[in-house]
């Protein structure tokens, strides 16, 4: 069997076993004894795998373990139930890593410290008196010469090893081998008295010192002499040497330069391999892919599939995005221009900065390539240029301008809130002096407004473009990456900005152009903080809906929402996807529109406009998802009904509230003069007509009516296109069709309207289309219960699929292993202890036996002696 074992042993193992290098010291023996080796047979031989555990040495490891136990467990056992114990506090006694020399040195140092510490701490002058053999070292020192003190430190006060060795027994004992012959000599010296010995020693050492001193002096003299001689010869020897000598001095800075350069090169950012510039085709392709992905996401949401899958990334970064670190550069520039007065002279540096900025920007763009679309990049570029332009301009300005401006900026520096308030106050005094400059110049830093009134104060009195710039700068100065609280500040800013937009819309006249300019900012902020943005939007919608609801509860109807709400709704469409099946903002917005369209009666030209805006918004909201909005059709039908002359109106179609078949408002869209249609030309209705229709004359009013009718018909047309697929398409549009075909006085309308009218009638078939009757969706048949055993094809243990599961599995396994190991060790411990106890008892018994035996022995001899004595007597 053993032979077989050996035969399975592979070559490398044999090598290990037999190689002489591994045999060291007393352990060498085991290798020769094959019975001490345990070989773990490998099942499969994997090439190139090194296994640690192919050979085991049970004997060795056992003795190791026993030794270890003896060191630890046994000691503990011996000390068990003992109050006192011996603690070895010698420095580094158990530190095996320390070299013995170190240990000794350290101990010595500690010893010295200890003695020193005991000294009077207030005694500053007197140092410790060093002694040697009871003699003060200071005394000894006095005996030496002054030259002696100058001598090399390593020899100062120390005696040579040989001397020490020969005179003080211990000194170099370790180093010195004791030769057998020396013994006699030592013994002869022993005869001299101690006093004599010391005197001799001192003499010897002084002599040595003196000799060394003189030697050294001689050597020095000689070298000096040599030097002088050499110098005198040097000039004669080489002709060019003095030049070299002269060159030496200017060479030094050059070397420095070089060094500097080398160092600079070392520290400088290495040119990193940038990504390859993409061709326009590649860019376009990437862009298309990105859009396709986003669109696919949108479609999923529209169908309501991934409603619960909330891990939606929103990492799209727009052209206006600020999340790219680009801000930091801007910020640099900000501080630069901020200290204009001081930095002006140093043009080069500024340029350098600008250059860096540029490259930085480009790099960013490169990085962002994957995300930024082409136009976005362009935009960014434009914006940057614009900014730089602004910056440059302001620099110039500040060049020209006096310290007044600096003051202004200092003020900005001082208090952030003050800046806002102080500005108008300043303007009164100083604008006269420097109107142009002050107007062109905007402060570069803005504090984030803490309240809506702060923002208003900041923005009031500026042109639309300036306002945009201010908001942009607020945004940049308070970028979340710059300070901890900035995120909250910008989130607030979004709310204030929306509020401001609402206020702009409610002004008379509404400043919609300014609103328009703010839209990119709002969009960018929304992309940065979607959570805050949707909260703000929700609260705006909720508040407005709440007030509308209250009015409905009291009066049963409500007035159309103001222009601000229309703008908000439009912004909702711009910021959030309206096609989602359910969305925390757009769904309430839908409900809001529906509420307004069903509960707000149309009583005036203004409300016509308001209703149409809402209708357009509704159409826009559903243009992608093609969802059905009944209120929209009802409302358009009601509006068209207003254009029908009274006499033709019969009950052929049913109107839905808030519209009434008759009533004073039911003829609102009737043209007062059919001639008006001749002079009418289509143009967009101003949004402000929601608040006030400017038309004063009958003709203008008729024109307005025609515009409204045109919009109305166009929306109907869009609806027919949107809902063509619905099974009840015809039923939905039947009332509209009846109205358009039979009652609307189309003949009096301009040709473009007639055209629209015709198109709509064509789009709605007179007879309903055919449909298959409804059937339930086919369900998957539920499989019968089977009695066969379940066969799992996945053989073996099921492994965790996720990383966590695997990790868990691994840890479990490890725990089990450790647990088993610990158990084993504990068992071994107890066995060892039992053995130790047993051996204790055995040894105790043996001792006792021995003593008893001894006693018996002695007694026996006593007895023997006594008997012998008795025998003697008897004899």
């Amino acid at each position, binding site marked *: 069997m053993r032979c077989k074992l050996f035969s399975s042993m592979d070559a490398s193992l044999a090598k290990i076993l037999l190689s002489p290098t591994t045999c060291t010291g007393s352990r060498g023996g085991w290798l020769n004894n094959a019975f001490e080796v345990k070989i773990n047979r490998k099942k499969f031989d994997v090439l190139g795998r090194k296994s640690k555990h192919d050979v085991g040495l049970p004997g060795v490891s056992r003795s190791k373990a026993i030794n270890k136990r003896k060191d630890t467990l046994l000691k503990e056992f011996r000390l068990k139930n003992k109050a006192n114990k011996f603690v070895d506090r010698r420095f580094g006694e158990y530190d095996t890593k320390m070299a013995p020399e170190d240990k000794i040195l350290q101990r010595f140092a500690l010893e010295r410290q200890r003695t020193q510490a005991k000294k009077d701490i207030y005694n500053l002058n007197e140092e410790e008196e060093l002694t040697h053999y009871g003699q003060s070292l200071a005394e000894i020192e006095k005996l030496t010469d002054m030259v002696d003190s100058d001598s090399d430190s390593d020899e100062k006060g120390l005696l040579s090893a040989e001397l020490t060795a020969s005179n003080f027994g211990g000194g170099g004992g370790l180093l010195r081998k004791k030769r057998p012959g020396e013994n006699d000599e030592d013994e002869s010296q022993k005869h001299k008295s101690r006093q004599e010995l010391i005197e001799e020693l001192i003499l010897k050492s002084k002599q040595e010192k003196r000799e060394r001193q003189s030697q050294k002096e001689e050597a020095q003299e000689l070298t000096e002499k040599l030097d002088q001689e050499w110098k005198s010869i040097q000039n004669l020897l080489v002709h060019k040497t003095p030049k070299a000598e002269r060159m030496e001095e200017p060479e030094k800075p050059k070397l420095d330069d070089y060094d500097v350069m080398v160092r600079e090169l070392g520290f400088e950012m290495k040119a990193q391999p940038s990504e390859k510039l993409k061709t326009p085709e590649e860019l376009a392709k990437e862009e298309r892919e990105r859009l396709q992905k986003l669109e696919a996401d*949108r479609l999923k949401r529209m169908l309501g599939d991934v409603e619960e899958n909330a891990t939606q990334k*929103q990492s799209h970064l727009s052209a206006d995005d600020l999340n790219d670190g680009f801000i930091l550069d801007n910020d640099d520039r900000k501080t630069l221009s901020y200290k204009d007065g001081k930095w002006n002279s140093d043009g080069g540096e500024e340029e350098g900065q600008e250059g860096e900025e540029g490259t930085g920007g480009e790099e960013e763009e490169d990085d962002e390539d994957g995300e930024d679309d082409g136009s976005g990049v362009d935009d960014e570029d434009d914006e940057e240029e614009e900014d730089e332009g602004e910056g440059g301009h302001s620099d110039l300005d500040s060049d020209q301008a006096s310290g007044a401006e600096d003051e202004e900026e200092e003020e900005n520096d001082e208090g952030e809130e003050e800046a806002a308030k102080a500005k108008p106050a300043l303007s009164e005094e100083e604008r006269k002096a420097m109107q142009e400059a002050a107007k062109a110049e905007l402060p570069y830093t803005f504090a984030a407004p803490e309240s809506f009134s702060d923002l208003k104060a900041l923005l009031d009195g500026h042109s639309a473009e300036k306002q945009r710039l201010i908001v942009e700068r607020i945004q940049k100065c308070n970028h979340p990456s710059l300070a901890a609280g900035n995120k909250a500040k910008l989130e607030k800013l979004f709310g204030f900005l929306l509020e401001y937009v609402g206020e702009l819309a409610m002004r008379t006249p509404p400043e919609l152009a300014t609103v*328009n300019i703010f839209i*990119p900012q709002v969009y960018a902020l929304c992309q940065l903080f979607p959570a805050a943005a949707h909260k703000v939007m929700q609260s705006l919608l909720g508040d407005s809906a709440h007030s509308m609801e209250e009015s409905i509860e009291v009066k049963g109807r409500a007035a159309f929402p103001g222009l601000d709400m229309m703008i908000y709704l439009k912004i909702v469409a711009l910021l959030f996807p309206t096609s989602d099946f359910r969305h925390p903002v757009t769904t309430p917005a839908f409900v809001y529109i529906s509420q307004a369209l069903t509960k707000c009666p149309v009583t005036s030209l203004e409300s016509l406009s308001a209703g149409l805006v809402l209708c357009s918004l509704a159409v826009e909201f559903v243009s992608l998802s093609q969802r059905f909005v009944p209120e929209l059709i009802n409302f358009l039908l009601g509006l068209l009904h207003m254009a029908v002359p009274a006499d033709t109106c019969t009950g052929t179609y049913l109107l839905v509230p808030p519209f009434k078949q008759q009533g004073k408002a039911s003829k609102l869209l009737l043209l007062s003069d059919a001639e008006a249609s001749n002079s009418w030309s289509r143009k*967009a209705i101003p949004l402000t007509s929601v608040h006030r229709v400017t038309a004063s004359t009958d003709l203008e009013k008729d024109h307005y009516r025609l515009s409204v009718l045109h919009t109305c018909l166009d929306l109907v047309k869009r609806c027919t296109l949107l809902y063509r697929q619905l099974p009840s398409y015809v039923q939905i549009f039947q009332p509209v069709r009846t109205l358009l075909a039979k009652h609307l006085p189309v003949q009096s309308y301009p040709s473009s309207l007639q055209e629209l009218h015709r198109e709509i009638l064509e789009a709605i078939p007179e007879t309903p289309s055919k*449909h298959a009757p409804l059937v339930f969706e086919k369900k998957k048949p539920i499989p019968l219960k089977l009695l066969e055993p379940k066969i799992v094809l996945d053989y073996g243990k099921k492994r965790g699929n996720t990383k966590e599961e695997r990790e868990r599995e691994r840890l479990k396994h490890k725990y089990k292993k450790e647990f088993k190991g610990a158990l084993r060790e504990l068992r071994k411990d107890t066995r060892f202890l039992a053995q130790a106890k047993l051996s204790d008892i055995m040894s105790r018994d043996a001792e006792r036996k021995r003593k008893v035996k001894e006693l018996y022995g002695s007694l026996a001899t006593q007895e023997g002696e006594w008997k012998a004595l008795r025998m003697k007597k008897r004899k």
Partner: protein
Amino acid sequence: MAPSKKSSVKQSEGGNSEISYKKRINTKTELLLQSRRHANDIFDVLEYLQSEKEKEVIFAINACQKIFCALLERGDLYVGQLPSEEEMVEGDRDADEKYHIFIRHRYSNCVELLLDNIGHEVFQVKEAALTALMKFAAAEGQHPLQKLEFSNHYNFPLELILAVVRCLLSGTEDMALLISRFQEFLEMDDVRYYVMSSIRDTITRVMDRNKRAVMPVFQNNVFTLLTNITIPSQSAEINNFLIRQEGKYEDWKAAKLKEQKRAFEQTWLTFLKYKLPGNMYKKVLVILHDSILPHMNDPTLMIDFLSAAYSVGGAVSLLALNGLFVLIHQHNLDYPDFYKKLYNLLDPSVFHVKYRARFFHLANIFLSSSHLPVYLVAAFVKRLSRLALTAPPTGLLIVLPFICNLIRRHPSCRVLIHRPSAADELCNDPYVMDEEDPAKCHALESSLWELKTLQSHYHPDVAKAAKAVNQPLPGLEDDLSKLLELTTFELMERDLKSQSLAVPLEFDPAGGLLKSAKEVLGVHFSLE
């Protein structure tokens, strides 16, 4: 009239009139009550009733109340048929009698003035006048001014009450506030009874005089007064009287519940006999089923009114349903073509009116019977789903489960959402929307394509509810009660309150207000 002749007195006082009028009235009152000698001072007090300062009027009213109540108690007022003042001088009466007659005349003057004051513009004055009059009524009841005859031995100041009611039921002014003040008197059983008869009297008089034309204010006042009348539910509760009759309650009509109910019933019928303004119709119908019908002796008397209302159409009909339901359910009313009418009630406005919840609640009850013919249920289902195409989301959230419930109750209606027999044949919708007879509208041959349409409704909840018909309906009916009162704002709040972590954003960057990829608003409107 006597007091007006002496109108020279009061206006000159000026500055210190504030205290002086109080003092003067008080002293006069005291004098009057002390001795007959000062009887003429009553004119001065009555003068104050016509003053322009409401404080004076109120003070005077209180004084009058005090004076005449005291006098009534003393029996200083003439009892019996009152001779006119001219007669008084002529006839040979003793001074005592003359004095009585004089005081009685002053009393009726005072009552007249107080009734005038009920029409005063200041509420406090009205209120004071009203309470004073009711005090008089109480006092008169204790000390009747008419000689009791045997036939009518229950003394109650009928004329006074009638006069008060007439004033309350003004034709020109909304008296709602005063009427609510008057309610405390209406809790007294005798007052209530006589007020009801007075109301009847007033209605007939006023309406006949107006040739039965609609009088919104008057009718509104009547309605307010009538709604303030509540008949106790048990006869034991009738024990609260303004005027104590001495132990003769058994035969007194006012003390009998049945009589009270009869009076109540007749009053309402009288009121409803005349043409009512539109909103009054609705108001009556709203309270009809729970505050009128239970208090009537014979609720079936209301059938005429209710069926008339039911055929009016629109919201009125919807409201009449409730009353009709009570009659059909509790009083065995057999209403021909009830379901046909109900069917015809369904029009787009059903989803928009205020009483939507009530209507669907009742419709749910009416259609809960499992004995209804299938064609009828199918017609309802089909019509409702057709109308759902114009409904707002809150309406849809009611009607969709409603339809599903109907189909569950009547499994034979399942063909409407599941017709596997003709699954592949395309067909036109055979349903005729304009047909008034549910039997002839071919609803059962149709399918609910409307629900299919609504599956693409913009509101996710509606779309989900509509998608229920894609699968076989689960056995349990949906609970409608929570959905009935759902308002649009609540619907909106569901989404606003929901805590969603990730909010999807629009990925098309926005360049301007009217510059999006799918712009519609910008096509028709400009930024101006």
